[in-house]
């Protein structure tokens, strides 16, 4: 199902993209990153287009990031607080989406607590493009793209060169360790696919209950010794404990999770020279990451947030470009 380019397509999963498709998004994001530096941080690219942000699950940063991205592209933004309205009144997801599409929209940015909702919505809409802003424990493709973009910039900068036009070769053979609640994490699923597509090798570390029930076919190595794995990783990706998906009941206590899998100052001290850390946010300081580690310059969490806007601008721009037509639902 991979397509070379996002142009004119939905973005439902990282699986929709191959390496070239990912690279294209990163390059467009680099260009939009330049817009951020101008005095008027706005381009007319999507003038006249309507982007609906449909968040069926609480979110602050992802929503703001997408809406900011759409506004920088001069799109009109319809922001619908569906979590608190029609759904509570018993309307089916399909009716909600069809109603909103009837208002005339070009793109739906969808966040939902249920896996697969964006794929279902993509079947139900007639012409709008659907951008997955996180669905249950399934996928969060823009977060993985932001992580790639941020890492590429940081790694290139460490080598004293520009990330623009650098392709994905910087990820070749890179060892990335993802620690935390893999089972419930949509970020981890997207990261694993994005990193391996880019050429990196991925290991995961989690308490036994927070690993997916069956990892057959996943391009990952499961590591049991977190301390040892931390010593060898080029990049450590930390994940939030997702209390809203019940991950708290999968470990005896959050304190114990912090002890076995948290990025403590002691663990951070064992990182290789030049190693980096990412976190998709929101961070819970003192649980998966010690407060001082969160503020450590090797932790890229703030750059990730900042890069959210240009990467999402690139995604919206490409998905709404008309190279493959807009009528092929």
């Amino acid at each position, binding site marked *: 199902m991979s397509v070379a380019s996002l142009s004119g397509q939905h973005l439902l999963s990282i699986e929709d993209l191959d390496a070239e498709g990912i690279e294209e998004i990163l390059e467009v994001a680099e260009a939009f990153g330049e817009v951020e530096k101008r005095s008027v941080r706005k381009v007319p690219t999507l003038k006249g287009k309507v982007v609906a942000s449909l968040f069926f699950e609480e979110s602050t940063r992802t929503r703001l990031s997408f809406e900011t991205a759409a506004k920088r592209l001069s799109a009109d933004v319809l922001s619908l607080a569906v979590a608190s309205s029609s759904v509570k009144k018993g309307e089916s997801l399909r009716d909600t989406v069809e109603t909103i599409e009837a208002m005339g929209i070009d793109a739906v940015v969808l966040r939902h607590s249920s*896996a697969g*909702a964006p794929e*279902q919505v993509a079947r139900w809409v007639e012409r709008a493009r659907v951008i997955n802003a996180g669905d249950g424990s399934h996928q969060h493709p823009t977060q993985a793209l932001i992580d790639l973009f941020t890492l590429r910039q940081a790694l290139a900068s460490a080598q004293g060169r520009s990330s623009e036009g650098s392709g994905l070769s910087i990820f070749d053979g890179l060892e990335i360790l993802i620690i935390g609640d893999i089972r419930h994490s949509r970020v981890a699923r997207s990261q694993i696919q994005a990193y391996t597509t880019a050429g990196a090798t991925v290991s995961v570390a989690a308490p036994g209950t927070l690993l997916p*029930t069956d990892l057959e076919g996943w391009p990952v190595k499961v590591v049991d010794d977190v301390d040892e794995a931390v010593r060898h990783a080029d990049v450590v990706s930390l994940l939030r404990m997702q209390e809203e998906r019940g991950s708290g009941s999968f470990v005896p206590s959050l304190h114990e999770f912090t002890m076995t899998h948290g990025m403590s100052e002691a663990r951070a001290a064992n990182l290789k020279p030049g190693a980096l850390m990412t976190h998709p946010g929101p961070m819970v300081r003192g649980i998966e990451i010690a407060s001082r580690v969160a503020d450590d310059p090797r932790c890229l969490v703030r750059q990730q947030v900042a890069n959210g806007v240009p990467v999402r601008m690139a995604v919206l721009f490409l998905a709404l470009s008309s190279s493959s037509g807009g009528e092929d639902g």
Partner: protein
Amino acid sequence: MAESLVLRGGTVVHTDRLAREDVLVVDGKITGVGIDIEAPSDARVLDASDCLVGPGFVDLHTHLREPGGEEAETVATGARAASLGGYSAIVAMPNTTPAIDCAAVVAQVLTLGRLTGIDVQVAGALTRGREGHSLAPMAEMAALGVTMFTDDGMGVQDSGLMRRAMEYARGLGVVVADHCEDEALAGTGSMNEGSLSARLGLEGRSALAEEVMVARDLALAELVGCQLHLLHLSTGRSVELVVDARKRGVDVSAEVAPHHLILTQDLCSTYDTLFKVHPPLRTQRDVDALRLALADGSLDAVATDHAPHPPQSKDRPFADAAPGMLGLEQAFALTREALGGASADPIRIFEVLSRRPAAIARLRTHDARLGGHSAHGGDVEVGDDANLCVVDLDARPIVDPERLASRARNTPYAGRVMQGAVRHTIARGDAVVIDGEAQR
């Protein structure tokens, strides 16, 4: 009744042989079986050439949704769908609203069933309100002719209560049927547990959740000595457990649903809720094991688990959508496909769709009570009640959801080519389906 009709040109599927014979039906009974049989001049002639003629099918597992869920199905529409599927009798599951857990609701559904063209039997709930806390009044339901009890939709989770239900059922001489899924293991899962569910980010319902419950029910039935029927088995391991228990003398029968013989979990990968069902669609390995078990007799019957749902119950995120799919109208062709298609043994087809389920539901003899019914699953001999079905082996219809008789549209088979079709259905002596068209 009062109609006489003759089925001409077909091949009759007896219990142990096939024969090129006509079948004459007069006043609800088979009055003649033979070559070029003489019929009264006013007898309606139904063409059965190139067809198999056998006993009408019996579905052990139909959700009719009435009372309470009439938007999805009613007794009348479900019975019509059943007749189009070749069924002359169906057993309605008790997970209605209210549940069929007392004589009053049993009587309501039986009375509605009497207004249809086929025999509608009822399965009663094992526990009050199907809540799994206390025994339902099984004796008062049995007095109306109910012979099978189950909380289908969910298994009885409390093993102590299940033991007590089996002990009580043994005393009444009725069958205990169970939906085998341990809810603590199945949890909030919405598809088969495995690498696919993990990739899709959907919680899984493990094969183990079913197998643990199957093992428990078999152990309890062995201890108590009650007749046990296992609903919709979906894994190869479940069948192995049944075969082992039978060797030890446990009185157990087991059914399989058409979808578990035809479809696999891979269909869930687009999050199409039409493919959500409990127990879930499993792997190709399970499908292969179930097909073998159906052919060799390890599994007794195909039962549809026909589960109608209105669109608003399916147009939801996968995890929130209602589980279940339609099955009555395609069961014959799917069973034939599962048994080998063109090479399927006609005798086995009629065993698993008619004779064995009729025996399990105790529908092989006439019963004059309110839940009374004619005799089903016979040998197609003179003197039998005329419950017959005529299936065309050469027809290759394509399933069109819009043309289903069911009120619901949640078929997982849309666009699929069926390996055969029901041409006529005779129920209680009347032609309720002629040339694939429902007559009432």
